[in-house]
């Protein structure tokens, strides 16, 4: 019924329009507020948060007499940036430190471990990688390539081995060597799989118990393209493991990663780093204001 055609032309139009809503120097009218809410929804922030933020900003605009769109752009980015919790401690700088990476399948855990190991070596820190994904096909081989790239040893066991025992091994080895930074990769799993979540809780608990010489941090890795399901993921992982923070990957694409804002807002978790590519250097520190500017369409 022409639905697809109408939609296709509508899509390209709306994409341009949305990027322009703040630049037209336009009046702040009803259309503006509607476009704004759409922009936020399109960034994966979720309908509820988008509505709440838009309403807040509407109030602020009335109060402070802001009636040009460009005036509101900055106000909005600042407003959004406030939703992020800041980290009390950087687990990759403040060493000695042991960090576990968890998340759903394909989010970017292994790659992030590789990048962080490379970074640590670049800064002259001693580092050790634990390969506790003993499940996925060639997960160990993949991690070993990263270990070689970073110049960091990988402690692991054969495929099918108990992942908790790998954690035990790597902490023991790190203590023996006096290693400053321990990075442990785990197998991807869906938050809805209760067996696999229980297994992961055991992995984390064993590590927390065994590792008395340094703090243990548990980081959830989230793919920036993730939609509203990211909230369910984060809640389940947090309930099972008591997370410390997040890393958002694949921000080099066109996804805005608004789900990270929703998660940080709901669960009060800081974002430690962002992933911006597949190479060893493609990792950046997180800046809430920059992130929010990108989210509201100022480009990156």
């Amino acid at each position, binding site marked *: 019924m022409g639905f697809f055609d109408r939609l296709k032309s509508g899509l390209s139009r709306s994409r341009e329009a949305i990027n322009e809503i703040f630049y037209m120097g336009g009046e702040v009218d009803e259309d503006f507020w509607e476009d704004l809410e759409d922009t936020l929804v399109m960034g994966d922030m979720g309908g509820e948060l988008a509505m709440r933020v838009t309403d807040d900003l509407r109030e602020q605009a009335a109060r402070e007499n802001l009636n040009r769109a460009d005036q509101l752009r900055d106000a909005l980015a600042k407003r959004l940036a406030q939703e992020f919790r800041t980290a009390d401690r950087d687990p990759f700088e403040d060493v000695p430190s042991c960090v576990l990476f968890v998340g*759903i399948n*394909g989010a970017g855990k292994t790659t992030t471990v590789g990048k962080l190991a490379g970074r640590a070596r670049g800064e002259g820190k001693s580092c050790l990688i634990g390969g506790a994904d003993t499940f996925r096909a*060639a997960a160990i081989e993949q991690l070993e*390539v990263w270990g070689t790239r970073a110049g960091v040893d990988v402690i692991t066991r054969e495929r099918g081995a108990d992942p908790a025992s790998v954690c035990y091994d790597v902490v023991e080895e790190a203590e023996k060597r006096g290693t400053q930074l321990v990075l442990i990769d785990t197998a991807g799993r869906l938050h809805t799989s209760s067996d696999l979540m229980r297994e992961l809780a055991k992995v984390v608990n064993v590590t927390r118990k065994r590792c008395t010489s340094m703090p243990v941090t548990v980081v959830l890795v989230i793919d920036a393209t*993730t*939609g509203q399901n990211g909230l369910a993921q984060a809640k389940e992982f947090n309930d099972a493991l008591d997370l410390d923070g997040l890393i958002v990957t694949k921000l080099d694409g066109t996804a805005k990663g608004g789900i990270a804002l929703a998660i940080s807002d709901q669960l009060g978790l800081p974002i430690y780093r962002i992933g911006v590519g597949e190479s060893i250097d493609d990792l950046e520190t997180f800046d809430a204001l920059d992130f929010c500017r990108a989210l509201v369409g100022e480009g990156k």
Partner: protein
Amino acid sequence: MFNSLSERLQDTFDKLRGKGKLTEADINVAMREIRMALLEADVNFRVVKDFVASCKEKCLTAEVLDSLTPAQNVVRIVLDQLTELLGTTESKLVLAQNRTPNVIMLVGLQGSGKTTAAAKLAYLLKGQGHSPLLAACDTHRPAAADQLATLGAEIGVPVYRGDGKDAVKVASESIHEAVDHLNDIVIVDTAGRLQIDEEMMQEAVAIKQAVRPDQILMVVDAMTGQDIVNVVQTFAERVDFDGVIMSKLDGDARGGGALSVRAVTGKPIKFVSMGEKPDSLEVFHPDRMAKRILGMGDVYGIIEQA
């Protein structure tokens, strides 16, 4: 059978009923609920707008407005519309009769599930009496070929790795390999790529030209959010895929992206992937997907088991 959305609509209409006949404004209230449900399911917001507008037209009939059960009627209309847009028939693999080997090529974003899906397709086709060959044409991700080789060994399907450096070369060689070893289908696994990565998109086009696939399938993660439209639009323009495999539907993602994919590219969803094991590939059913998107039956495939 209907829960959550239909209950919410029921409540809405019960309240409105108190003042007599339903009006257009009352239908608008219901449409807001539907809009919310679709956005929560990650249907692209523009798709949502147009979809809701077209549903509204269909709901503004005497049949709905005067009915004693308007909530059920509205849900029925929305469900039917959604099912229709998702594709009214089950789509299967289309292979050429007069060509050996047939070639299936997989493309998609990083981590979407291509390599796993390649093994699953091989397993499925092997079970149907075919003799597939897997081609390891991801020469970028560390240990990508090892991963495919491990999966191939598990399901007893050969894997062609070539030199592991030049993806296009490995792809063309795999066809010769299949001819030599009497494999009737080659399944080409490719590296994950972003739609904005020009060099990598060119590589995908070059692989396509080298192997002239009978089917190009795009693997899309069921958890993908709003950006899905930008991704699939570019892949459709550049590599012109034939259909979609939606992966990771074993979780609780509503998978509203399926509707967005159909809406912006018109390409059918052919399979859904329901786990990490080789036997977890299932044929796509539009009606179940529609219910899932609306939150009316969370477990895909629950109907078949019942």
